């Protein structure tokens, strides 16, 4: 026998024990093997299967036995008695005979039970049935003093299952009962016998020799080197194991990190600004008139405590003039009396542009390329499309030669790196940019364009009061909408529900694949 054959013939201890047994005692039933080796029949079956696959033993179906248990109807009969028994008892109590309608009105047996009872009582010769007038008359012919065979079978089965083959003289009663609907449940159980093959008979004895096998490799075995003298037990590599789940980052954080890395790669520096913001920075500095609908209570969260803050004094005066009459920016202004009180109100910022404009007011670095990904708020009723709190991806680029086509270029590049390669730009309107544009991305699996964000060049009314003379390219893109697309989620609320089933199903590699292949 070659070394390789020997490898193949590596036997599991159970296989070895089973095979040794049938080699010494001849073919045996699985149940007999199980009894002799004190293991369960299932384990024997498994060993038999392995041995068969190695050509060492042959399982064959030797016989079939029938196992009986009580059916639903049988369970009722065990409780109440067979219908035929109840019928003769009823007849007996009525004086030995009665008409069908009398028995019916006595109400001892239901209509179906009565019919069944009549049939079997008649077959058993317990009663006779005759027509009398318009009715049927039943009379006891022979009252069964002792239990019938049928009743004995039910008695036996009341204690558990039994094999038909073990029932001896009661077998005909079993067969009779099994023909009655739902009284007995009979299942066939095949009995298998395992026979050693010729190959098994010629096996070298060392294969069958009891050897110590290693289940778990231990430090002691390694240190002593004793593992060399032993065999490793082979495992069932298909056996199920207890699942393990890796803790994960939240998909939104993962996405935010990804987007941050893209803007860093594109040479932008990250900034951050306040969430509770002065109306001044959120609206006024962005040339949003004080009666603009976006500033109304049903769009913007205002604070009741603290209710107001302090807008920068010098800049407020300048911004107020711009709103009034253009304040020397070349604009006509909105033509109304600007109120510093309105600008002092505190809001939850409605866009991250409040942060870029703050940064623009304080930074004299040129050229300037900054971005922020952060939370914003809208006073809206939350539904599957709208959230009251969400994130924006915001950025500005300030440079002497900055222009609209470059702005489109940055946005196109960003989405391409997110795997969304088909974009289009449409004219749009924001009070603080001109020209303005909206970006749509084409979503292949939806077959449609999805609106993902706005952009534009800050108006001189916005930049000149801050002393900024260069064009400022600005954009604000929705994060959640992008997240829904990339994560295959339909309901925006899912992102903040933190359901562990959803969180733990997040597959960051799949997201990478989407990003790379588009």
């Amino acid at each position, binding site marked *: 026998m070659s070394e390789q054959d020997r490898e193949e013939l590596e036997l599991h201890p159970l296989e070895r024990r089973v095979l040794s047994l049938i080699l010494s005692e001849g073919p045996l039933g699985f149940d007999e093997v199980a009894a002799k080796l004190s293991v369960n029949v299932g384990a024997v079956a498994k060993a038999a299967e392995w041995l068969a696959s190695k050509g060492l033993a042959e399982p064959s179906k030797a016989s079939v036995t029938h196992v009986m248990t009580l059916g639903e109807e049988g369970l009722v009969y065990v409780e109440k008695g067979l219908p035929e028994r109840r019928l003769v008892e009823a007849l007996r109590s009525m004086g030995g005979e009665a008409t069908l309608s009398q028995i019916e009105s006595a109400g001892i047996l239901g209509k179906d039970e009565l019919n069944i009872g009549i049939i079997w009582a008649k077959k058993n010769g317990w009663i006779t049935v005759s027509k009398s007038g318009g009715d049927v008359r039943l009379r006891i012919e022979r009252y069964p003093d002792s239990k019938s065979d049928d009743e004995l079978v039910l008695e036996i089965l009341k204690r558990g299952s039994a094999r038909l083959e073990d029932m001896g003289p009661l077998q005909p009663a079993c067969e009779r009962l099994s023909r009655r609907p739902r009284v007995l449940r009979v299942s066939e159980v095949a009995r298998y016998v395992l026979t050693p093959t010729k190959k098994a008979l010629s096996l070298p004895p060392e294969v069958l020799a009891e050897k110590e096998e290693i289940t778990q490799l231990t430090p002691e075995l390694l240190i002593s080197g004793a593992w060399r003298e032993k065999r490793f037990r082979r495992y069932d590599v298909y056996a199920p194991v207890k699942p393990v789940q890796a803790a994960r980052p939240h998909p939104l954080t993962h996405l935010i990190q990804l987007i941050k890395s893209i803007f860093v790669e*594109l040479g932008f520096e990250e900034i951050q600004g306040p969430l509770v913001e002065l109306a001044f920075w959120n609206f006024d500095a962005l040339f949003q008139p004080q009666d603009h609908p976006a500033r109304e209570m049903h769009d913007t969260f205002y604070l009741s405590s603290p209710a107001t803050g302090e807008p920068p004094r010098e800049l407020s005066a300048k911004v107020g003039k711009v709103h009034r009459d253009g304040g020397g920016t070349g604009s*006509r202004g909105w033509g109304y009396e600007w109120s510093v009180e309105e600008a002092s109100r505190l809001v939850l910022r409605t866009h991250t542009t409040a942060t870029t404009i703050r940064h623009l007011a304080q930074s004299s670095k040129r050229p300037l390329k900054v971005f922020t990904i952060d939370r914003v708020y809208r006073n809206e009723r939350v539904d599957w499309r709208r959230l009251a709190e969400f994130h924006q991806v915001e950025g500005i680029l300030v440079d002497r030669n900055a222009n609209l086509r470059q702005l489109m270029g940055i946005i196109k590049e960003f989405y391409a790196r997110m795997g969304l390669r088909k974009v289009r730009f449409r004219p749009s309107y924001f009070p603080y940019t001109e*020209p303005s544009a909206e970006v749509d991305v084409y979503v292949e699996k939806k077959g449609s364009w999805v609106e993902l964000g706005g952009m534009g060049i800050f108006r001189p009314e916005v930049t000149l009061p801050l002393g900024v003379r260069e064009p400022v390219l600005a954009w604000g893109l929705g994060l959640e909408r992008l997240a829904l697309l990339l994560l295959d989620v339909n309901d925006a609320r899912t992102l903040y529900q933190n*359901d562990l089933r959803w969180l733990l199903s997040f597959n960051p590699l799949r997201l990478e694949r989407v990003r790379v292949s588009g």
Partner: protein
Amino acid sequence: MPAITLRVDRVSRFVGIQLSTNQIADLAAALGMSVEEVGEDEVKVEYNPNRPDFGSQTSVARAFKGLLEIELGAGRYSARASRIVVEVERSVESVRPYIACALVRSLNLGEEDIADLIVLQEDLHWILGRDRRKVAIGLHDYSKVRPPLTYRAVGLSEIRFIPLGSYQEMTPRQILAEHPTGRKYAWILQGKDLAPIILDSRGGVLSFPPIINSSLTELRPGVQELFIDVTGTDEKAVNQALNILVTTLIDLGGVAYKTLIRYKGRRRQVYTPDLSSTKWILDPSLASSLIGLELSTGDVVRALRRMRLDAKASRGKVIVGVPPYRVDILHPVDLVEEVAIGLGYQNLEPVLPETVGIGALLPASKALDILRQFMLGMGFTEVVNTTLSNTERDFSWMLINREPGIKILNPVSIMYDCLRELLLPGLLSNLVANSKNPYPQRLFELGDVIVRNDTLPEKACRERHLAFVVCHSTASFSELKAVLEEVLRLFELENSLSARDYPFFIPGRGAAVVREGVEVGFIGEIHPSVLENFGLYMPVAGCEINLSLLGVA
């Protein structure tokens, strides 16, 4: 955003050529409208509020004709003289000081035209009028009107007339209290105790702006002479609304007539409508540099004329005439955008800027990333909750007996009335939401809380916190303490626990994390009363650390 439905047959008729729904959708998008729905014979679009003139199909068709080069430049709009005088009494000054009127004749308005006009009127009420507060429009059948007219403010019970939608005479007071339209707009006149009224020479009431018109001058299909009154608190907006309506009616074949508005006792009189165009001078180099294309004066002129603006070259500059219905041109940059749209955004090739910048993350972002890796490494899954929060949950349920530092004035949903000051309540909510999922559960959050800070101009500042919880049948202080100690080693902050009781921890099973005498966090087993308040029936141990106080992030 305001919306309008563009009917294929109607728009095609105004444009003069048959258009398909797809062509209409493309043209609308090219003009900056957002296409909501392309139907079988109509296209639903939303338009931006800077273009209230897009509120009627006639005016949208006017813009389409420019892009299709069927008509270029601004149309000719003028108003003839008339003898109609509107006397404005001083009594309106404190209520609704401005009025502008016009008469349009030679009309033959069908049902569709009238329906269009009503849509336009409603949109103007909203966009320019801020829900009629700033501007309100009345449309009247002129055959019922006997000029001269008077615009005055009267006592609320001083006058009676039959308002539209009613069959009986009512006083302004009754209208404000009982008529559905009156009740809807009563807020505009609140506290004024005066009703602005437009009367004709026989004493007939035309309207009670900004609330409702009189039934006297109600419009019916076939009306040929239309009288328009626009009243409001902002004279510029009042005139803009009138101009948009009158130019639309001229496009429908009408002939406009001016009215003389005489402000009594103010020595002031004006003729309305004023349909003259506004002159601007645009330097083509501004357009070239902002758009990023070398544009000649000729290119600029052509693009502007496609946008239905008058434009001609003069000594290297472009002289632009802006028609009276365009209310969105405030600065030459607005004309630059007109040039860009005239060229077509789809024709502007995106390019990457060459502007150099050194990319960098905020130090805080990097620190948070490291902490996140750390928590993940210890088998905690990350959650993200909103900063918008709820006083009941964050304070009452947590047994914290104080008011939130920041309160929201006007939340639409009662779910939100404050901003979070701790992350822990959010994590407990997450555990409740996950109570059907397998245990043990280990969650963490790295996020902002917002606290009041009166030294800052915005009176609040954000602080970064780290919080984590374990939840299972034997969750305990010691289990979480082991995790906390590992985190503290990261901050080089060993041996910083100090036994302390917190309302939300079981007494004797809580501790503060202290650095140089300052509490920077806490850890403990959540009190069963708190768990009960949240509806959580599984033990929880929780920990929260203020990273900003630690100077970590």
